[in-house]
C-alpha cells in the first residue's frame, strides 16, 4: 500500500463525522457497502445500498478496481462436499497441511428447526487489508487493477505478521514455497490465463460460490449484492477491513 492509498483509506474511514449531505454522497460510493455499512443491521445495509444507488453506471465508476473481483456465497446451500477445497488443492498446489479455502461447520443446538450450517471462507480480498499494511517487505500487496490481494513469494521473509493481522484466518505458511500462501482468486493458475472463473466456484455442485466483477452491473455478484429482497452481509465488518466477499441466503 502506498501513501496515497493510505490517505485515501483514512478518508473513507472518516465518514462517521461527515454532515448528512456529504454522507449521502458517500453512500453512493460503492466502496462503503463493502463492509463498513454492513456494520449496522443487515437489512439496513441492503436498503442503504439501494437508496444510495444513483445510476448503476455511476456506482460502477466508483469501484476502485476494474474488474473489481468479488465472491458471493449463498451460504445456506453449502453442503460441505468439499469439492471446492479439493479443486483448490489441485489447481493451486495447496499442500495437505494448509488451505486457501475452507468450510466451517456451524452448529447451534438451540436453533429452531435446522441446527447446522456450512460456511465457506477464503481470503476476503479486503479493500483495506490489514495484512498488506503489516507486511514489512511488500511481499503481499493489493493488486492495483483487480483488487486481488496477491503474494510476491520471493519477497516473503516469513515473519507471519500478515497471519496475525488477518481477521479471516486466510493465510498459512507454505513450506514448499517458503512463503505465506493464500487465495488469489486463482489469479496465477486461471484468471491470468484467460479463464473467467475460480476453480472453487467452478467445482461447486450446489451453486454456493458466485464469482465475478462487482463493478459490472450485469454480473451476478453485482445483482446479488445490490438488491433489497435478501440480506447480504460480510464477516467481521467491525474490523474495518472492508471485505470483498459477501454472504447471502438462497
Amino acid at each position: 500500500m502506498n501513501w496515497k492509498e493510505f490517505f485515501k483509506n483514512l478518508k473513507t474511514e472518516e465518514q462517521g463525522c461527515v454532515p448528512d449531505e456529504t454522507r449521502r454522497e458517500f453512500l453512493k460510493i460503492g466502496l462503503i457497502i463493502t463492509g463498513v455499512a454492513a456494520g449496522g443491521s443487515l437489512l439496513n445495509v441492503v436498503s442503504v445500498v439501494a437508496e444510495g444507488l444513483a445510476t448503476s453506471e455511476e456506482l460502477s465508476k466508483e469501484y476502485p478496481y476494474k474488474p473489481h473481483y468479488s465472491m458471493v456465497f449463498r451460504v445456506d446451500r453449502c453442503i460441505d462436499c468439499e469439492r471446492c477445497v479439493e479443486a483448490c488443492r489441485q489447481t493451486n498446489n495447496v499442500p495437505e497441511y494448509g488451505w486457501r479455502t475452507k468450510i466451517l461447520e456451524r452448529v447451534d443446538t438451540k436453533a429452531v428447526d435446522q441446527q447446522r450450517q456450512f460456511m465457506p471462507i477464503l481470503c476476503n480480498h479486503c479493500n483495506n487489508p490489514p495484512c498488506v499494511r503489516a507486511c514489512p517487505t511488500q511481499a503481499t500487496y493489493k493488486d492495483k487493477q483487480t483488487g486481488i490481494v496477491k503474494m510476491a513469494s520471493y519477497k516473503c521473509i516469513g515473519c507471519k505478521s500478515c497471519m496475525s493481522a488477518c481477521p479471516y484466518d486466510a493465510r498459512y505458511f507454505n513450506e514448499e514455497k517458503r512463503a505465506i500462501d493464500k487465495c488469489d482468486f486463482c489469479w496465477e493458475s486461471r484468471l491470468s490465463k484467460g479463464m473467467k472463473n475460480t476453480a472453487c466456484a467452478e467445482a461447486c455442485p450446489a451453486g454456493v460460490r458466485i464469482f465475478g466483477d462487482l463493478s459490472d452491473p450485469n454480473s451476478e455478484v453485482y445483482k446479488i449484492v445490490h438488491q433489497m429482497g435478501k440480506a447480504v452481509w460480510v464477516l467481521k465488518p467491525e474490523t474495518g477491513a472492508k471485505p470483498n466477499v459477501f454472504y447471502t441466503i438462497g
Partner: protein
Amino acid sequence: MKRIIILASTLILGLSGFVLSEITEEGVKYQESEEAGGLEIIYTKPVKGVLFSHKLHVKELGLPCESCHTAIFEMEAFKSQRNPDFIMDSLYKGKYCGACHNGQTAFASNTKCATCHVGVKGLERLKKKAQVLEKK
C-alpha cells in the same frame, strides 16, 4: 412375501442385538445398538456425506417399514446410490427421499440442505463412530 422379508429383517436388525458397522468405498453404515432402531447410512456419491437415519425415521418418527420398503428403496444399503439418477433433481421430482421430502409429508428437498447433508466433516465424524463400534 414382502411381509416375511420385512419381518425377518426386523428380527435380524431389531431384535438379535448384534452391532453392525461397515466402512466401504460406497459409504458408511452402522447401527449403534439393538434399541437404536436400524441402520444409519451415509452416502458418498455423487457428493460426500448424506445421512439417512433409520433411527430417526423408524424409531423416532414411527414410520412403518412399508412406507419406504420396497416401493421407494430396496432393502440393500447403497443400492440407490449405484443408480445414476440418485441426484437432487430426482429428489425434486419426487423420487427417492423426495417421495416424502416434498414439502408436504416432510420438509422439501430444496430446503434445509445441511440437515440431510452432513458433509465431509459429518462423514469423518461418523466414520470414527463406526470404527469404534466395529472394534466392539
